[in-house]
């Protein structure tokens, strides 16, 4: 069983994001960058499935030079090898171009299963995994809060607005996992050391057999403006009378 997992390096979500005023692209230089917190669940899910089947996990990432760090981190958590698609011409790619690149990377790895987070914590588009599945002609099982393999079948509990659906598909398939599906492990010192000797390939657009001309984004940011912000209201320290104050406010709003 070979399982590929998508990871992405994103600006630290706890910091304030910034756009480059010249390009209107997300600033990724000179800011703290981290493994997308949603991806840690995908890595853990892939590792658990691989451990249960004597399989292997291959990390795939597309990103700038520093994205190598998150591939290494996933390998330090236990993935056996890594593939980093790094090409300056991919800066500012839209979700469709990203999906085309990742689909080409998946074809090269030829896994039985691809695991990804539901969406990235910087772009939040959330269409890339299903788009990759479509390009490969594979089923996609998105928003999994529980995931299991049996034989050549993957079965998930997929979030719905009212609860969940039980969904299954034949392998190969793409699964996206929600936060909280598991408790992601931390890399151990042994893991970090061991990862250094495992294979990590860096590939360009051409290495993947793609044509850069077909990857240019079909969208362009034309304006950025601050969203209308709320005004801060009154803030009081609770000295025992806060409950009364809130109740008065609720009465004023005619909620009680």
């Amino acid at each position, binding site marked *: 069983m070979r399982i590929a997992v998508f990871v992405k390096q994103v600006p630290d979500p706890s910091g304030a*994001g910034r756009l480059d005023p010249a390009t209107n692209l997300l600033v990724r230089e000179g800011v703290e960058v981290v493994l997308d917190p949603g991806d840690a669940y995908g890595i853990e899910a892939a590792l658990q499935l691989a451990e249960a089947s004597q399989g292997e996990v291959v990390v795939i990432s597309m990103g700038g030079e520093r994205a190598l760090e998150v591939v290494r981190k996933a390998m330090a958590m236990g993935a056996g090898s890594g593939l980093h698609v790094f090409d300056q011409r991919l800066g500012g790619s839209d*979700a469709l171009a990203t999906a085309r690149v990742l689909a080409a990377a998946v074809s090269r790895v030829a896994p039985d299963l691809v695991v990804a987070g539901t969406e990235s914590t910087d772009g939040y588009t959330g269409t890339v995994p*299903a788009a990759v599945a479509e390009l490969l002609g594979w*089923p996609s099982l998105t928003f999994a*809060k529980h995931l299991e393999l049996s034989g050549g079948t993957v079965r998930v509990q997929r979030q719905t607005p009212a609860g969940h*659906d039980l969904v299954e598909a034949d392998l190969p398939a793409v699964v996206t996992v929600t*936060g909280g599906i598991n408790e992601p492990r931390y890399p151990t010192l042994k893991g970090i050391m061991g990862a250094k000797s495992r294979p990590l390939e860096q590939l360009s657009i051409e290495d993947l057999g793609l044509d850069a001309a077909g990857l240019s*984004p079909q969208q362009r940011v034309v304006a950025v403006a601050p969203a209308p912000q709320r005004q801060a209201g*009154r803030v009081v320290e609770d000295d025992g009378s*806060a409950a009364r104050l809130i109740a008065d406010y609720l009465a004023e709003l005619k909620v009680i």
Partner: protein
Amino acid sequence: MSKIWVYAELTNAELAPVSLEVLTGARQLGGDLEAVVLDPAGAGVVETLGEYGAGTVYLGLDPSYREHLAQPAAFVLAGLVEQHHPDLILFGATYDGRDICARLSARLGLTVVANVLDVVPHGNGYAAVSSIFGATQNVTTELLGPSPCALVRAKSFVAAPGSGTGPQVVDVALPPEAPTGARRLESVVTPSSGPKLEEARVVVSGGRGLQAPENFRILEQLAELLNGAVGASRAVVDAGWVPYARQVGQTGKTVKPDVYIACGISGAMQHTVGMKGASHIIAINKDRDAPIFKLSDLGVVGDVLKVVPALISELEARGAQAP
């Protein structure tokens, strides 16, 4: 005349609220508005689609659209797009809408913008207004290429019927070569009482400040007294304290209640994007510097585990009763 399509979804044999919202928003763009419905119960919503402005409804009723995730719907939709060349395709940002949009995009090479709050005419085409960085910035993105797709966030428009009547119905068949893909075996509904989170006039939400999952009980009590619904931040949903269906924020639900009471929620952008549209916000948090106090109309610096029980007693003393 430009042609705008809305992919309309059904929930329990009725049009999903977000689909009605998107139709209402699309109507304001002018042009020919057309809807695509791929659902075995679709025949029952044709009239409503007409009222909301759809002049034409492409209607597919094959059970496969329910039995399988995204793949048959995306396949048929792609065929329709290639045949009719809409200038813009709008989807509600639902679980299924997102998957179908993603697959359509990949199949035909169409661009997608997500988190869309509004669509505006731009040059000869359209631009999408979306929010980024936890809704602190609004970005206008010009949509290029054929039939661009936009995933519209819930509650971006207020649904209102127009004056349309009986749309033209075009029956759509599912070709035998259509893929099936993932199979939906069973739908499990998590029982819940009280008003729905998205519809409640009052929402009481909890975060890490509650310290332990069992402490959510006090929020349920408070919500019952106010005939409200209980929400939660991503942190506590990820921690498994409350089900995902309760999550408010970027990856959860968007709510616009009359009153939102944030209990022990710091106000990370991931959360505030889903609730900043509330008419009135009350925040209770220990940390005086928590960003939630920048949004709240009334902020209380204090321990939720003290303030909320005291508030429950106060409301009961004033005669509030759980239904």
